[in-house]
């Protein structure tokens, strides 16, 4: 594998021809060998940012993109040497598995024998050796994902970009492939950008996570930092459920205007100790029980409790909010 | 996605060239139809005399073509809409075979169909000498277009479930057909109807062999004028024909633009 590169974006914005702003001017630096996860809801500009890095979209006037010391702003996608795994994979239906994986090498004029060797190597890496001659429509979703990955890294890209690589798969398979992908990215040691709307995926795969919203970078940092120290309510809410209570009882008990917390930060106890609340619904989820609660003034919040919690709908409990934070 | 500049230039050039190739001759024809003397050119002045002359000579073919088209439309609607519903209800092999068979009169050259009709039914005197003979030919040629358009309309709505729901509510088959199925397929029926009328008004290949001197339709008259009239009259007659087609084509394109984005019209006049 080639030596990993840093990626630097300076003042990169994107405005569509109809005038809508997809991306506000943005500066971003991705370290060599790092995996950066772009996380945000659909339409937040994360895919546009990814497409700008690989050259499929150009940045507005004044934006600059650098790979290491090379300014690639004006370089066409076909000359940037980036490996891309597209959402839905975009495997060529007119070629078999080996044909797909070897296509980039064929374009580069690699001779047939070396190509075969390299394709075999790649398929071994993603554990698909046996399927080299398969047609694309004979593959399962998980197999397609791995073929797409093999095709992207076969060209020894300087940068690897993945657009929602696991979204098309069902939940169980996604868990498995997430682990495999994390391992593979560590092995490759390549600079990688991964776009996802799934916070768990972002936190598992990204060395750092960039949370985006409405064309803006909200916060950039290690997953733990983002979770423990969110810069805005949006970031806090996007990385897991965030509850918010304010006024009245909260002000008297905690001495603050409003309280934000996560459901697992609430402890439920018999009435009389903390905020009095009424259990409205109870969902048994195996490893824990999820309670939907309401204060006397109608404000609602969620709490997670151990699976042996005894409260039932209609019970009055008191909520002890542990790591109470000022909102 | 960015397009290569070469692609765009080639595409634009080819598109404009093809439009010029298709529309240029139409403009020539329109001009010739209203020019006093085409060989002298526009300097000879504009006139509607040729159109008046066409009306004097060929008005009967115009009315007859409309009559044939409406009769064809009535028959293709009455027998085509039920056939389309049956084909939708039974999406199996047999139904594909039936649709394939009904499409044969379009796949096979009109000349062959016309000869077959003549050798089998030409000896029935009253039929041979009436416009009904032409209508039969037109129904054979246009029915597949009606069936296809109506089926496309029926597949959009989940009609089979609606029909079953109406059945559980106690509606008879006749009620269901007219209350549920026909309204749901109405946009398909309108598309089919415009297509049928357009094709019938322009049909020549069958009609040329099926017509008698007393049952000339518009295209037959056109062929006649091309062979025997001066260029201006032939052009004026063509102009009248184009004006008859125009509202039908505008209607078809309007419906096509409203329902789906792509540009294919399921239409092809007899060549």
């Amino acid at each position, binding site marked *: 594998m080639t030596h990993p590169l840093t990626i630097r974006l300076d003042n990169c914005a994107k405005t569509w021809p109809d005038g809508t702003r997809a991306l506000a001017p943005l500066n971003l630096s991705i370290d060599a060998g790092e995996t950066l996860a772009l996380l945000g809801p659909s339409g937040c500009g994360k895919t546009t940012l990814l497409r700008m890095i690989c050259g499929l979209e150009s940045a507005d006037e004044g934006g600059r993109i650098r790979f290491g010391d090379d300014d690639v702003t004006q370089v066409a996608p076909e000359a940037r040497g980036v490996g891309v795994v*597209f959402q839905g994979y975009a495997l060529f239906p007119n070629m078999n598995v080996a044909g797909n994986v070897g296509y980039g090498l064929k374009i580069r004029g690699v001779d047939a024998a070396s190509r075969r060797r390299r394709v075999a190597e790649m398929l071994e890496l993603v554990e698909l050796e046996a399927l080299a001659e398969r047609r694309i429509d004979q593959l399962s979703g998980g197999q397609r994902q791995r073929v797409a990955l093999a095709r992207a890294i076969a060209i020894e890209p300087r940068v690897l970009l993945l657009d929602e690589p696991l979204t098309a798969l069902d939940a169980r398979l996604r868990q498995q492939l997430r682990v495999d992908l994390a391992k593979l990215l560590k092995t490759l040691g390549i600079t990688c950008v991964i776009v996802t709307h799934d916070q768990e995926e972002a936190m598992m795969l990204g060395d750092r996570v960039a949370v985006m919203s409405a064309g803006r970078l909200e916060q950039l940092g290690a997953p733990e930092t983002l979770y423990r120290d969110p810069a805005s309510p949006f970031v806090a809410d996007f990385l897991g459920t965030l509850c918010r209570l304010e006024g009245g009882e909260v002000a008297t008990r905690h001495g603050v205007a409003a309280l934000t917390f996560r459901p697992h930060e609430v402890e439920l106890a018999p009435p009389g100790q903390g905020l009095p609340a009424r259990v409205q619904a109870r969902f048994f989820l195996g490893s824990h029980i999820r309670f939907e609660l309401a204060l006397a003034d109608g404000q609602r919040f969620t709490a997670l409790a151990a699976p042996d919690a005894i409260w039932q709908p209609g019970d009055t409990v008191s909520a002890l909010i542990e790591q109470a934070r000022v909102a | 996605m960015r397009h290569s500049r070469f692609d765009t230039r080639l595409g634009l050039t080819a598109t404009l060239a093809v439009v010029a190739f298709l529309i240029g001759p139409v403009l020539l024809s329109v001009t010739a139809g209203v020019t006093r003397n085409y060989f002298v050119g526009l300097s000879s002045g504009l006139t509607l005399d040729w159109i008046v002359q066409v009306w004097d000579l060929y008005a009967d073919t115009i009315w007859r073509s409309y009559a044939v088209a409406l009769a064809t439309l009535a028959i293709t609607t009455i*027998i085509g809409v039920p056939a389309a519903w*049956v084909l939708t209800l039974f999406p199996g092999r047999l139904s594909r075979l039936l649709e394939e068979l009904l499409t044969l009169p379009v796949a096979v050259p009109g000349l062959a*169909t016309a000869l077959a009709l003549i050798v089998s039914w030409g000896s029935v005197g009253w039929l041979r000498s009436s416009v009904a003979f032409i209508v039969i030919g037109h129904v054979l040629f246009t029915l597949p277009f009606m069936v296809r358009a109506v089926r496309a309309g029926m597949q959009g709505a989940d009609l089979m479930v609606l029909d079953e729901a109406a059945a559980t509510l106690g509606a008879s088959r006749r009620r269901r057909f007219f209350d549920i199925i026909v309204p749901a397929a109405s946009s398909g029926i309108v598309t089919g109807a415009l297509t049928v009328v357009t094709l019938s008004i322009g049909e020549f290949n069958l009609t040329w062999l099926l017509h008698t001197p007393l049952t000339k339709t518009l295209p037959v008259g056109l062929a006649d004028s091309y062979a025997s009239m001066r260029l201006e009259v032939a052009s004026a007659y063509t102009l009248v024909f184009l004006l008859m087609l125009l509202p039908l084509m505008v209607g078809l394109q309007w419906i096509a633009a409203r329902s789906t984005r792509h540009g294919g019209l399921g239409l092809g006049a007899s060549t």
Partner: protein
Amino acid sequence: MGRRRAWLVIAAPAVVLFLAFWLLPMAKLAGIGAATPQGMDASAYWLVVTQPRYWQSLINTVALSLGATLATLVIALPVSRFLARHPDFPGRRVLMSLLLFPLAFPGVVVGFLVILATGRQGVLNTLSKALSGDPMVLAYGMAGLFIGYLYFLLPRTIGVLMTAVEGIDKHWLEAAQTLGASPWRRFVDIELPALTGALTAAGAMCFATAMGAFGTVFTLGTRIDVLPITIYDEFTNYANLPVAAALSVVLGLATWAVLYVANSLAARTARGN
């Protein structure tokens, strides 16, 4: 299922009409083709394949139709790609309407338009005489017929190919681009294979339409030796019904077979994708 079966009866009128006015007449026509024409010593089918003047006409028709089909596909492809890829191009709707309007023109009218453009009093001739002094008249021969075929085949093909181009997943092209493929390689390696089915189907439709075209030739001049004119001549001028029938059946079978094979091929590639 039994409840549904009761619906079958309403398709009966269509079936009866088809049997009475198409299938049985066609069978009768095929039977007539087996008869021996007056003054001949073999069935019309035999004559049709053995007599040079018939199979020459067949070869002419096939060659002309094939040429017109290929030319149509080559011209229609860049037009369809342009229109499909530039949905926001100003005036696109007008261009589309202009391209599709000729769909409604019958062959006779197409023939007349060819005469206006390339006939003795045509624009082409006027231009040619003005520029080089030599007359240029194409309308009344094979060249004119070829132009006429292009005229009615182009609108039919452009619509079909546009839909096919719109159906190509643009991510395939982008994936190829990030893998280093130039525009030309993307066209050859990704786009053309994805369009094979549509090109085959459109080509077959063109070929079948051209083979059976009668109105256009009829206007341009009945001396052009193609099959529909031969059939018409045998029927009206020589009253040779058996040969006209045999030629019709051969022509009908040929066009139907081309369409059938191409459509099954296209359906198979569509499923393969």
